[in-house]
């Protein structure tokens, strides 16, 4: 039989061609990889870490107690409280609304599904200042609904309502995006299995869907938290940063720089930075468990 001999000859030629292709210059390969890692790290240090380090350095060179004391002044405390309240409300509302939207997008077929899906990402695409401006256009004294709001004595612009609207808007997409992604990854079979086992829609949500998306949801909540806390443009335009009334932690820093009160600015900035570092660690943890 001549067949086995023929089939033996074939692989050897294939192998040789293969070897030629699979033998890159190992030195260049390593050099390329190292320089990629080095430049990426350098970039991160320069753009992300250096500014934070700079604030810390300035704070220490000024003497830590001064700036920290300035945080205890009533204006600073009010700004901080405002930011915390806005963040808490934004997280609570956006988590519920975001999860509902995500389930609607991932699990239900409706006519405007594509549009809703795209709209949920809109806040990522538009500048927060523009968002503030468009809310002004709607709810400002001269705005479309201005007269109606005036009639019912509801104040939105330069008031708490405006701050909240702006914050809610910019922080909306994070939960939606995280949860939609995981819901689509999960598929519907566990939910269907629960239905055939006699579970009601509410039972399915709390006993099957929610446990499966809990890490994605946690990640989304943390992102919402970070975004709400750090929002500046929309709350500046809508709130006007009235000290003691509509000033937030971020607009406080802005105003402090304007007034050359660098101590207060650095104090607040460091506080926010510490908050961010805490969030970063929590995000890392959530990211690791997100895939389940």
């Amino acid at each position, binding site marked *: 039989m001549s067949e086995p001999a023929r089939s033996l000859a074939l692989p050897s030629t294939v192998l040789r061609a293969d070897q030629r292709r699979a033998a890159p210059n190992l030195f260049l390969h390593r050099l390329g990889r190292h320089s990629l890692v080095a430049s990426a790290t350098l970039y991160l240090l320069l753009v992300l870490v250096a500014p934070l380090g700079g604030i810390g350095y300035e704070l220490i060179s000024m003497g830590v107690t001064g700036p920290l004391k300035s945080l205890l002044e009533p204006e600073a405390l009010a700004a901080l409280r405002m930011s915390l309240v806005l963040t808490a409300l934004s997280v609570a509302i956006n988590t519920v609304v975001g999860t509902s939207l995500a389930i609607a997008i991932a699990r239900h077929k409706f006519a405007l599904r594509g549009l809703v899906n795209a709209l949920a990402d809109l806040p990522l695409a538009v500048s927060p200042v523009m968002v503030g401006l468009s809310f002004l256009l709607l709810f400002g004294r001269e705005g479309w609904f201005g007269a109606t709001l005036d009639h019912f004595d509801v104040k939105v612009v330069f008031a708490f309502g405006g701050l909240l609207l702006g914050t809610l808007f910019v922080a909306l997409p994070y939960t939606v995006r995280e949860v939609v992604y995981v819901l689509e990854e999960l598929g519907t*079979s566990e939910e269907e299995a629960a239905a055939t*086992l006699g*579970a009601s829609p509410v039972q399915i949500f709390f006993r099957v869907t929610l446990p499966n998306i809990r890490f994605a949801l946690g990640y989304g909540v943390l992102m919402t938290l970070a975004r709400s806390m750090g929002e500046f443009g929309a709350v500046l335009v809508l709130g006007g940063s009235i000290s003691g009334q509509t000033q937030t932690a971020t607009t406080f820093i802005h105003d402090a720089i304007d007034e050359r009160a660098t101590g207060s600015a650095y104090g607040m900035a460091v506080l926010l930075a510490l908050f961010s570092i805490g969030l970063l660690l929590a995000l890392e943890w959530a990211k690791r468990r997100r895939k389940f």
Partner: protein
Amino acid sequence: MRIRVENLTKRFGDFTAVDNVSFEVEDGSLVALLGPSGSGKSTLLRILAGLESSDSGQIWFDDEAATDLHARVRGVGFVFQHYALFRHLTVAQNIGFGLSVRGIAKPVIAKKVKELLSLTGLSGLDERYPSQLSGGQRQRVALARALAPEPKLLLLDEPFGAVDAKVREELRQWLRRLHDEVGVTSIFVTHDQEEAFAVSDRVLVFHRGRIEQNGAPMDILDRPETEFVARFVGEVNVFPAEIDGDRATAGKLQARIQGEPPLGPAHLVIRAYDLKLWREDPGIATVQRVVTFGDRVRVQADVDGAGPIVAFFPRRSSLLRGIAPGCRAQIEVTTARAYPAANSSLIPAANPA
């Protein structure tokens, strides 16, 4: 529970997944829906479970109309192809889920779970999570979970599709024993004919959303009603043939056909194990390839005027003496059937490999 399905149709856009299907399933039987992928069998199963709605037609569970019942209240157990176990729950919690959502007391659930664990041979694994189980174990958990609320009907979608061949064989026999023990009416979907014949009391062969044949496994094997069924079940040879009474002729190949001879152009269908082939000069064919698969040998030959033909023999068959590529051979057909070529939606097989 007796199942009756009448004129069921389901369309997805322009595609008709289930096309005016009617059949009955006897109480306590184990039925296989056999067909190639995309033939509509899984859709039918999902409609029976209430996971999908039908466009028209009726479903009766005993004498109760079940067509519009929600999946939650149908009392149907469903075993998903990829198990769909709750990944955040332990084996015991998975099995107890259907009882727990009904608000049944914990000790009662625990007792039932324990029973099912031993029935499915999973005792001792109750605290494991699905990710810590093998494919075969997951399959059993899925089955135990579906059986826990004591369904009147058990549906299994490609139950053994995702496990390897050896485990599949074990699970298959185990499912049959379990069915005989529990006695719940069961329908399972498969594209694997061996699986359908090994396990079920009745086989429904599906093709393009329609039932091609509904019968006992031996009926389907021995008396395939359509060319599709004949070709789907086992490896077959198909030739355009001339029919004269009960004799069919394709090139130099001649065969006596069983059943009603078709009028007009016909396809002669011969199973690969329903023919004899031996070395003979001049004979009617030239041997092309001889391949050994464990205990069987597959011989491919080229019939003069008819084209390639495949035959299976036991490894030690005396017919194989002297058979080698290039030699001439004589062929005798032991059993064959013929079907009208006009009705066939299939292209004649040029090479039934």
